[in-house]
């Protein structure tokens, strides 16, 4: 069966679809958060070297990973919007940006909280930390550029170009631990054989999934309000039940 993807790339059909999907994502995200936090903070044993502090990992690592992936997804949507001139993809890109910035910020914040006991300083100028900071700035740059152009079509296109150019930073963050000798630790999640306790692993993956679902739910909510705002003069919006 062939699905007509283009049908769902039109705001008219996407708007109600997103409306139906949001509760599912939101509810499952909430459940997973609860489970993940329970495993992470109650079930998982305390770490031999890091004591109880390590538990911040269950927030820090998912948000770090997601902040990077969201950037790539945002850049991907922006590129689609730029090349195929599809309104919805540009709207998705601008809907994702604030969530991405939020996760980047959380990553920095939790990292800083963790750094004080571990390294004795809130912040060190290490390559990974710095490149995560740059990622936050790239998100903010995207948002600021979009905000300072009044014409939404032009804003979409300009910000898209910026997002694409900025995506070179993501591999730099990812590989920074390998390229430079840093304080920050390297990858612990490996595909073969990990050193982590099984409960830690479960908590980590549950939290990661929860964050993903949360990001999707928020992005869908935001894109719905963007659609409402941008298309407020079209006929189908004025006929919507919630607008009347």
């Amino acid at each position, binding site marked *: 069966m062939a699905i007509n993807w283009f049908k769902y790339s039109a705001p008219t059909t996407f708007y109600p679809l997103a409306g139906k999907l949001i509760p599912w994502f939101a509810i499952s995200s909430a459940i997973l958060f609860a489970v993940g936090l329970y495993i992470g903070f109650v079930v998982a044993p305390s770490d031999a070297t890091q004591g109880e502090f390590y538990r911040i990992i269950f927030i820090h690592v998912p948000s770090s990973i997601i902040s990077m992936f969201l950037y790539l997804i945002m850049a991907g949507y922006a590129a689609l919007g730029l090349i195929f001139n599809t309104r919805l993809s540009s709207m998705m890109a601008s809907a994702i940006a604030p969530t991405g910035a939020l996760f980047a910020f959380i990553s920095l914040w939790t990292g800083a909280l963790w750094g004080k006991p571990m390294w004795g*300083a*809130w*912040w*060190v*100028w*290490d390559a990974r930390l*710095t490149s995560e*900071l740059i990622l936050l*700035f790239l998100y*903010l740059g995207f948002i*600021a*550029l979009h*905000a*300072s152009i009044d014409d939404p079509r032009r804003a979409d296109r300009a910000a898209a170009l910026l997002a694409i150019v900025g995506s070179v930073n993501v591999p730099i963050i990812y590989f920074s631990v390998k390229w430079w000798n840093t*304080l920050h630790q390297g990858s612990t999640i490996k595909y073969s054989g990990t050193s982590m306790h099984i409960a830690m692993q479960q908590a980590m993956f549950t939290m990661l999934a929860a964050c993903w679902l949360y990001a999707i739910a928020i992005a869908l909510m935001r894109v719905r309000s963007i659609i409402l705002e941008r298309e407020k003069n079209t006929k189908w919006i004025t006929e919507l039940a919630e607008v009347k």
Partner: protein
Amino acid sequence: MKKLSLFSLLLLVIRRDLVLAMRRRADVLTTLFFFVMVVSLFPLGVGPEMDMLRKMAPGVLWVAALLASMLSLGRLFSADYLDGTLEQMLLAPQSLSVLVLGKMASHWMVSGLPLVLMTPVLGLQFDMSVEAIGVLMLSLLLGTPILSMVGAIGAALTLGLRGGGVLLSLLVLPLCIPVLIFGTGAVQAVTSGLNVSSHLSLMGALLVLALAFTPWVTAQALRISME
């Protein structure tokens, strides 16, 4: 229609410039981000040794504040110049100095005040002590208005010259160096346990001097530039 008093004229100008800054919502935030960015670049170039960074911190923050306020000075009069508003201001039937003072005040609110408020976070990044951060903030609070006011003179003089931005810094930076020295001096004094009040009161005096003279000087500079 009723006549405006000098004070409400001052408020009008300040409000106008603030509204203009807010229209470009990005404006206020971006000066701030520039500041944060410059401060964050240094450790990258210099290396992550905490001891050295702690020592550098007040200098870096002050230089960054100086640059951020310099960068935003370019806009102070040039927009008004290009669209002809400045001509109208020179023809205003009230004292031009008051208009200029209003523009200086709003410039500071947009590009100086946010930096002061941001300082604690950056100070912590450089592992500064709470006391030092307090003095640093105080010195910036006294110093950034001076930068805006002295900068305004330069902005008025370089009006309408292309490449004015850089020429402007060239004129203004030397005048701002005393502020920089007293400002960082105050922080160094507090970290080495000395008395800071002499530095700060000197800056206070500079601020009063600037308030008294710069609006008038800037007004004259504007008249010269419009010829």
